[in-house]
């Protein structure tokens, strides 16, 4: 067993776990944070997406012990302020960006971090440039393609993200 401390959703948590426990299992089974979902356990579906120091990762492909010094944010902690909701969560409801809800935590965490990546000038396969990249529909689709939605709520998810991006635009 390895004892480690991890900041999760702004709170320091102590974990006593084997070194092979994934970050996803640590969150779900050991810390009771079941917002991040397990859809494939092999990095193919994105349902487990969480933020590590604000960067989106597949928690199923990460070992918890590697993240001892990181700030982890899950869907449960993505809201700004106590009891509130993140604008992305509200936009997903408004635009019906989900059906069953199982991929939704991952989609929302991924979308929030994707907008940060874009704002930081990170390129994508759609736009072969490092100049200022316009956040077109195709750009969002490409950048969100690591998050599968079998219910097929992609149109609503795109609309929700555009809505939030427009709100955040200077």
């Amino acid at each position, binding site marked *: 067993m390895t004892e480690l401390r991890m900041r999760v959703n702004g709170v320091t948590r102590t974990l006593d776990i084997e070194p092979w426990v994934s970050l996803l299992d640590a969150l779900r089974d050991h810390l009771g944070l079941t917002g991040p979902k397990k859809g494939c356990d*092999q*990095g193919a579906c994105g349902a487990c997406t969480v933020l590590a120091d604000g960067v989106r990762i597949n928690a199923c492909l990460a070992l918890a012990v590697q993240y001892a010094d990181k700030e982890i944010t899950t869907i449960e902690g993505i809201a700004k302020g106590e009891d509130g909701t993140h604008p992305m969560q509200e936009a*997903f409801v408004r635009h019906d960006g989900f059906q*069953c809800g199982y991929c*939704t935590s991952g989609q929302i965490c991924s979308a929030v971090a994707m907008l940060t990546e874009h704002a930081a000038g990170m390129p994508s396969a759609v736009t072969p440039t490092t100049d200022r990249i316009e956040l077109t529909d*195709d750009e969002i*689709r490409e950048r969100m393609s690591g998050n*599968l939605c079998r219910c*097929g709520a992609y149109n609503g998810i795109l609309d929700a993200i555009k809505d939030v991006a427009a709100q955040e635009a200077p």
Partner: protein
Amino acid sequence: MSIKYVGRPVDRLDGRDKTTGRARFAAEHDYPDLAHAALVHSTIARGRITAVDADAARAAKGVIEVLTHENAPAMKPPPSRSLLNLSTMVIGTSVNYLATDEVHWNGQPVAVVVAESPEAARHAAGLVRITYEELPAVVDFAAEEPNATPQKGNALMPAAADKGDAEAALAAAAVSVDLRFTTPPHNHNAIEPHATTAVWDGDRLTLHESTQSITWLRSHVAQRFGVPEQNIHVLSPYVGGGFGGKGSVWAGTLLAVLAARATKRPVRLALTRAGVYHTVGGRTPSTQRVALGADSGGKLTALIHTSVARTARVGGGGEQITSASRHLYDSPNIRLRQSLVQLDLISNTFMRAPGESIGTYALESAMDELACELGMDPIELRMLNEPARNPMDGKRFAHRMLREAYEVGAERFGWRERDPRPGSMRDGRWLVGMGVASAYHPAFQLPASVTVRLGADGGVVVRCGLHEIGVGAATVQAQIAADELGVPLESVRVEIGDSELPAGPMAGGSGQTASAAASVLEACRKLRRSALDLARKSPDSPLRGVRDPQARDGGLYQGSRGETYAAILARAGRDHLEAAAGGGMLRFMAKTVRDRRRWVKAASGAHFCEVRVDRDTGEVRVSRWTGVFDVGTVINEKTVASQLRGGIVMGIGLALSEEALVDPRSGRIVNASLADYHVPVHADVPRIDVHCLDEPDPTMPLGLVGVGEVGITGVGAAVANAVRHATGKRVTDLPITLDKLLPL
């Protein structure tokens, strides 16, 4: 009834729970002392287990028990399928897991490891060594296809039909096409893998389950474990996608319950993604022939549609592959046949529009090819052959608006811009193509028991064991109840997903919403009547003497005369009023049979698809989509559009990328992962323009027809037809991958 909420794009009532991570799914319930189970799958398709070596697994750290056929307590064998016991409709396979040394498919669970942690269970599962005596197995669908035998039909699902002499008419036709289609096996791939948390307390069982069929699952588990149904409490408030894959009872559920009983511990069994492929059935592959004959003006003279699909020696069932060919086109000569082969694979099972999704691919591709042969616009050809009455038997359509769907769709999509010559439309390196196809899915209902309670505080509680697989089950029933009782939506709470509630219908056949709506309407009517009776008993009530008040503003009113429910209940000193409706299988079946004699009921629609095909690589991108649907009354514009879009998205997968690959030697699914079985991603899905004609079907409750499946029907053909237009190539073998298009 004052219509205030029905038809409005109301936000989902469970939206906040689903977007904050608060919604808990079947594998997310913690219990003290919870143990974790993992499955060991057979590595042969057919044979016997001759030896089990579980010593290393048992010795591994954290392992509580390894259950095999040598030591597991036996479940009762599954009963045979019978219409007298409807729960037998959801039997996944006939195998009595861990009670036999026989192996019936590659991937069958042959051992279960129970451990203190999921990691320990999974590790130890890999340590179990099983030795087999292998027997010859029949696993190759293509090779077995010539041995197909006729599918057995019944009154509800006929498997053959004849009208006139279709072969002779085909031979004599001025213009004809005769095409053979093949479609591969598909898997549902709900993003939530099936999961069960089983907790025994004596002979009482709590089951957190991911299911589309709470009531029948409970009956089946009760039969297998020899306990009364009432002893089993099934909780399934959220289901992370189903698409039919969670309709039946599969190994994972039974083995979690068995493991919990054997170890006297609460047990969670969350299937791995590969585990879902190996222990839950999928859609059958098919080969189909569609032959069409027409006169030189395009009037059909012959329609032949035959199919071969597969079941398994351990179960499964024939699908309605030729069903749309009974209803879509007028032809004096029709011949329909469905045949089956039986393989040593896991049972096939219903997957979104079983039969119709792949059947419409073949039929609607052939219609397009006939239009090409005739040099006729494919919409014009369809309208020319649009029947006034059901082609097979002359029954009336309860509702039919395909003409309107094509008219509206053509306008929205810009069909006029299409140059009919193949390969004529280009955008740089892209060959642009436009295709159409019809969507068609029968309407279906099951009995649903519902109670509606009206409280003295004005609050309404609707209770029904519905399944929230993503359809907005609670939201739409709340909208209906709010309008029927004339109360604000905020005052309605809908309780679902629990076997302690009045029994809901299975979430299948696109029937859940209409089934529950019928009972909610009836219960609300009864409640209004009780409230009125109660009010009229009092001389002080303004409703005295009123016969037929309107439900609005939280009460009953006729003109300015009336009062709130709260006032009625307070005066009578009543805490609440409650009404129940539904149930009654016999009465329900009688009505269904009567209805079926009179009407053909269905949802239908017109798909318009634009594709871009890379002229060098053959890559196909779907670039635009319009779908116009006749699904009767739209209860919630938002959720209905989402479900129809979801069907189209899954159809795009069916058209372009989805295929479960079964090793023809071993019977193993070799691409049992989301990395290797390609479902559509964000980048594969364009803006999907969905429009509903929104005319009530006069024979359905509130005029609504289910929307869960019609969206996927016809999609495969719309894509294939657009590809044909872009490239001049007709692809008759799904999925349409680039190797089937090159060279261009």
